[in-house]
């Protein structure tokens, strides 16, 4: 196992400020605060070479988990081993083997040129000169950052900066890569390039990847394994297919009819079938679960009674499904 977390827990003490002058004065003499649980009893095992997508709403505990795994935060209790090391205690040794991108904050130096930052990182990670050159060529080919190298970081656009940030995280060819919302706010083209490079490193160098995101298309494109987390607990751990299944496996059949829809004929056709119809102009939309009803059976029942002109079957958008799932869990 590359990552082994057992009953991992992290709490923060939050400090709500009191109002008014007297509150401010009393705050001066207060120690400690209210305990807030960010990660609660997390169990997770990741094998080398896996690409795991961490999804969950804001405040679910994804970033806290990543920060513990990267050695930045100490766990409050439980055990965590990454590559046999305890990230927080053996930080310096640990960070040599990992690459990290925090989408929200840059790891480059605002006032230095990109190449100066890369040189410094290659120096601190002791990357041999020949390897360093190869890495720069790879990044230029895959991310197109060659023309950006001489620019100060503060002058880069978000997309340019993120490409450079990803390259910076990969200079020392880490076998384990953490991406904390790496494509937040990026356009389709930059997202595609970043995904392609990550997929390629996984395929060709066997890089293990842990990714947090709100972009479910990204999860579908990159991650054979998905971990859904909320309130610091794992709600689901499986493939994207299993995620769909667990989220209900809802499908949608959209039927276009010749002429006006006859509600009577429709309800007769759907008699006894576990399906909810919605009528719109000249169209019927039918929602059903894949486990309860097969699409051919439904189509057959409809065509027998109604003048069907055209139809299409769609899987429910996973984003909608996850949103609904969060709602159900919280209710």
């Amino acid at each position, binding site marked *: 196992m590359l990552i082994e977390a057992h009953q991992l827990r992290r709490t923060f003490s939050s400090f709500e400020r009191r109002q008014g002058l007297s509150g401010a004065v009393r705050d001066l003499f207060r120690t400690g605060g209210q305990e807030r649980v960010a990660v609660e009893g997390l169990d997770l095992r990741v094998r080398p070479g896996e690409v795991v997508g961490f999804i969950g709403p804001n405040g679910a505990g994804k970033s806290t988990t990543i920060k513990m795994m990267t050695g*930045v*935060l100490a766990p409050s209790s439980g055990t965590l081993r990454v590559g046999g090391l305890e990230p927080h205690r053996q930080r310096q*040794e640990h960070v040599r083997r990992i690459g*990290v991108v925090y989408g929200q904050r*840059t790891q480059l*130096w605002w006032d*230095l040129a990109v190449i100066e930052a890369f040189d410094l990182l290659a120096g*601190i990670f002791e990357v041999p000169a020949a390897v360093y050159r190869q890495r720069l060529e790879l990044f230029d080919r895959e991310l197109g950052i060659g023309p950006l190298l001489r620019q100060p970081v503060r002058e880069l656009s978000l997309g340019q900066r993120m490409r450079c940030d990803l390259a910076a995280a990969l200079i020392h060819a880490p076998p384990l890569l953490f991406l904390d919302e790496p494509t937040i706010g990026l356009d389709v083209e930059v997202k595609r390039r970043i995904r392609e490079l990550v997929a390629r490193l996984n395929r060709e160098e066997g890089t293990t990847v842990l990714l947090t995101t709100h972009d479910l298309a990204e999860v579908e494109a990159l991650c054979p394994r998905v971990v859904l987390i909320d309130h610091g607990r794992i709600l689901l751990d499986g493939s994207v297919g299993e995620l769909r299944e667990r989220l209900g496996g809802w499908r949608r059949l959209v039927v276009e009819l010749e002429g006006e829809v006859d509600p009577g004929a429709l309800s007769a056709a759907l008699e006894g079938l576990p399906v909810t119809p919605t009528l719109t102009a000249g169209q019927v939309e039918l929602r059903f679960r894949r486990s309860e009803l097969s699409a051919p059976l439904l189509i057959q029942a409809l065509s027998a009674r109604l003048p069907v002109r055209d139809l299409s079957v769609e899987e429910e958008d996973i984003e909608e499904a996850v949103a609904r799932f969060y709602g159900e869990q919280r209710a």
Partner: protein
Amino acid sequence: MIPTLRTGLALGVKLALAYRFEALVQLLSASVVALLSWSLWTAVFRDRATVAGQDGPGMISYVLVAWLITTFYGSRVDQELAARFREGLIAVDLLRPWDLHLHTYARDLGRAGVALLLSTIPLLLLAGSLLGLKPPEQLWTWPVFALSLLLSHAIGFGFAFLVGLASFRLRNAAGLTHLKATLIGVFSGSLIPLDLFPEPIRSLVLLLPFQGMSHTPAILFTERLPFVQAMGPLLVQLLWALALMLLGRFLLRGALRALVVQGG
């Protein structure tokens, strides 16, 4: 350890060169204060031969050196460290295989090196040719002064690092930074020669670490002590530098254990 020092120094130098304009501003403001101080002491010595046992040229040299080397040791590590904690960038600093304390020291030394070349040395040369700053007569004074400068920087860094950690723990950077500037200004000898304090304040002030920042290099530069006796203040500087550095390392460990990376 070597890569940590090397990249720290390189980073400090690069960042300092990226802010060249700031060096120019520092040069200008430091020379204005030097001129003010020179005018004041020249006026004082118009009517009398000595003050606190010092003659005019000796006192003016002390005052100029003590002030001008602040451009070298003046560390802003406290503000940098507090800002990196506040903005959560400390999470990025911790992703590097370096000792954060040693890295920060090397980076500030790189910054100081650039300041030495762009501000301190030009200012000392200017003061030597225009304001009557006397260069040392003995050859050994130069290496001893250089070592003393390195230690004055280490003390300044060590203290600023502690202030930075305190700002993080107390979540208040501005107040502590101000306090730091005041303590150094008054007790280092950079603005007021420490010999002007009446006893027993003078003796107390000489027990503080700040006297190692400007007072010690200034008395060494002005050759008030013969070689063997000069080793005393140098040793005191070294002990203060080590003590502050070790305390910084120790408290950093505690701070990192308690670390809450702010901002998501």
